[in-house]
């Protein structure tokens, strides 16, 4: 764990520029080949006016930030509740940030509740939500 877990602690940010190559790779990993994500010609004819990243790819960025902050405790016991606010497009630079809002002691486990948000380079919210993770009290 790379930061001291306490109420008000700010999680280390995760910054990632979205590329069409990333989106294509995510399509391979997920099997989601919806043309809105990978077919520029098709996507240009839609209301989106171009390809957009899978919402789940943005959540992957958020999960990565939480994994770097909380280590395996995140992968083994994390809870994520999110709302998609706006699309992410190739070329966007996304910044995922978070803050420990509360800590709840439960014998040898501490439940950390964090607010999390992903914003683009224009400071627009792409995804917002809450994460909870159970961490050993000794950490």
């Amino acid at each position, binding site marked *: 764990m790379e930061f001291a877990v306490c109420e008000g602690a700010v999680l280390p940010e*995760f910054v*990632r520029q979205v590329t069409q190559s*990333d*989106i294509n*790779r*995510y399509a*391979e*990993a*997920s*099997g*989601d080949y*919806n043309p809105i994500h990978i077919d520029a010609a098709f996507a240009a004819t*839609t*209301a989106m006016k171009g390809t957009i990243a899978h*919402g*789940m*790819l943005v*959540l*992957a*960025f958020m*999960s*990565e930030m939480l*994994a*770097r902050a909380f280590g*395996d405790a*995140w*992968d*083994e*016991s*994390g*809870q*994520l*509740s*999110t*709302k*998609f606010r706006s699309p992410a497009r190739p070329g966007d630079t996304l910044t995922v940030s978070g803050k420990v809002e509360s800590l709840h002691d439960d014998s040898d486990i501490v439940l950390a509740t964090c607010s999390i948000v992903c914003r683009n380079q224009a400071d627009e919210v792409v995804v917002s939500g809450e994460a909870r993770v159970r961490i050993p009290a000794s950490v």
Partner: protein
Amino acid sequence: MPVAYDELTSGHEFPPVNYVLDAGTVLAYAEAAGSEWREHVPPLAVAARAIASLGGLVSLPAGTIHVAQDFEFYRVVPVGARVTCSARVLRKLARGGVRLLTLEMDIKDESGAPVQKGRSTIVLPEA
């Protein structure tokens, strides 16, 4: 065969889908997400294939929007693991022009132990 929205009811259960989280899949995920390599499969890599499989279970029109997503992780699985995803309709709302669907999925490993649970809420365009 995908089921049309109009044919779905709350509680509808879809046939389970199973898949292998092989090294190629996990590597593609890690490259796309900027994920640090670890011995187990990142939980969102487990979920990626499950969420995509939901799209094959329900016939969704163009313009369908994924508006919310929740997860609970219970355990990790190693690279190469086979998992099974069982999905059901948790909530269906069709009122006025709004058509909303919340799907719940349970992912288990080969021993039947829970790996993670997810809830996806989507909004369909007006018919």
